């Protein structure tokens, strides 16, 4: 497999090849060469099956990391391709022409992370949400619990006690704070 790593490095500046398992490796690319590299992997290297595409919000680094998982059934090998994009300007080349279902993933990423894929069909339509007014909800800085608490009524009447504090109140309330 390292030959593939060399080829990808030479052609597309890929780096950081990591063998997670015998049949799974990860590699990092620059976002602007992503589409070419994926096309190359599909057409020349036999990675014809796109398992899924998604993103990770690496908010600490200020980037979204894209995750494309390809599989070559001939080699019996899967390859996870990563590419970082700027969190402030999240725009990536669309791959909907490479795989006929890729636009769905891109629509999902647009809705969930706010990553734009210009030219991808229906990328601006709502996917799973309806009438959503909040920020893209899969971003790390979106707090699901806070949103839920503020939006949806909860059944009242719940209260819990911390055992240690309760025992202190009961057994040695005089102890100094």
């Amino acid at each position, binding site marked *: 497999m390292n030959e593939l790593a060399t080829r990808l490095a030479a052609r597309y500046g890929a780096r950081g090849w990591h063998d997670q398992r015998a049949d799974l490796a990860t590699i990092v690319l620059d976002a602007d060469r992503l589409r070419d590299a994926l096309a190359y992997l599909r057409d020349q290297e036999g990675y014809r*099956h796109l*398992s899924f595409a998604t993103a990770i919000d690496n908010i600490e680094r200020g980037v979204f990391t894209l995750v494309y998982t390809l599989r070559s059934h001939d080699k019996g090998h899967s390859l996870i391709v990563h590419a970082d994009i700027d969190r402030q300007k999240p725009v990536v080349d669309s791959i909907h022409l490479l795989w006929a*279902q890729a636009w769905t993933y891109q629509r999902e990423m647009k809705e969930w992370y706010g990553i734009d894929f210009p030219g991808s069909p229906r990328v601006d339509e709502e996917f799973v949400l309806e009438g959503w007014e909040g920020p893209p909800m899969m971003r790390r800085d979106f707090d*699901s619990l806070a949103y839920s608490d503020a939006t949806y009524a909860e059944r009242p009447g719940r209260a819990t006690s911390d055992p240690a504090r309760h025992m202190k109140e009961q057994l040695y309330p005089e102890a100094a704070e």
Partner: protein
Amino acid sequence: MKKEKLRVIPPAERANPDLESGKYLLMWQGPQHPGITGNMSLKLIVEGDSVVDCETHVGYLHRGFEKLMERRLWMQNFPLVCRIAVPEPDFNEYCYAAALEELAGIQIPDKAVWLRTLSLEMIRLASFLMWIGGQAGAFGHGTIIQWSVTMRDYVLDLFEELSGGRIYHMYIIPGGVRGDVPAGFFKHVLEIMDTVQKNLDDIELVMFHNVVFKMRAEGLGYIPADWVDHYGITGPNARAAGVARDLRKDLGYLAYPRLDFKTIVGQKSDAYERARLRLLEMYQCIDLIRQIVDQCPKDGPFREKLPNPLYWKIPAGETYVAAECTRGEYGFYVASDGSDKPRRVAVRGPSYTHAVAVMERLARGVNIADVAGLMVSLHTYPPEIER
């Protein structure tokens, strides 16, 4: 004449019907509609009784699993994952558990491997049984569901005995399985397999030789073999198109390398062929379950000790673990940043592509009455699309 009908390939481009012209009708199939699989909907534009354009709308069951999992401890996610796909929760449990074990470097005992395999095959059978009722029902054949759902219920009884849960088994826990087989369990398994097999024989006679079913299903939703990679089609839908792809063979996970089975491949790749292939796979399931019961070690540990789940931290890393579920490639992508909660969990459900991209294209030109049958023949399940 029929030969041509079999080879109809719907156009790749969407028609752009002018709704104002009065020639077309926009109608929704679902979410509240008996001819829809689960809580989802199809937005159909029809001309007369044939579909011109179809859009899949999902999200009615969106609970934000992937967000919720980032909020929960590694072990706390274990009860959560199975809810992603109600008819076959065990694949979620397995993929999640296997991903964690891989990242944490845990080897599970052999007995757990076998019991996991058993659990996966049993739920595959149960899910297929549920599906076949739906498939027959979508073509107006109401008898099959009366039998097959009952058969599925018998399999669920087995799960209840094994794991304590009927629908959500929560049996495949990171580190192994949650309990040993109860006394007499394997005997019950074999008995129920006999019952199910007898019933499958009946179903074969009643459904697959039913003239109406044959006429309506044959030629419906033809999937050419070259779509398989282009659309990311997996599972029985791909195999029916003649592409021998079965992750149980390809990845060789769990005890599958030690089981004797062949990948079943079809040719015609229409709704009938897909149904037939699934029926054969049900027989295969029964065969596999019998093999598992035969080979499963009777003693030995069924679980590996894990660290305290309240503080369990998984070393930083990422992996993608896939399994062959009833519908195709089911996978969990898990990324850890070394903390006690996942950084990212992404679920790859086979319905994702089947129900959206593939369905939208296949529906073009289909008779409106066949939309339900077509939808079911792809065997999709909405929660794994929207999570």
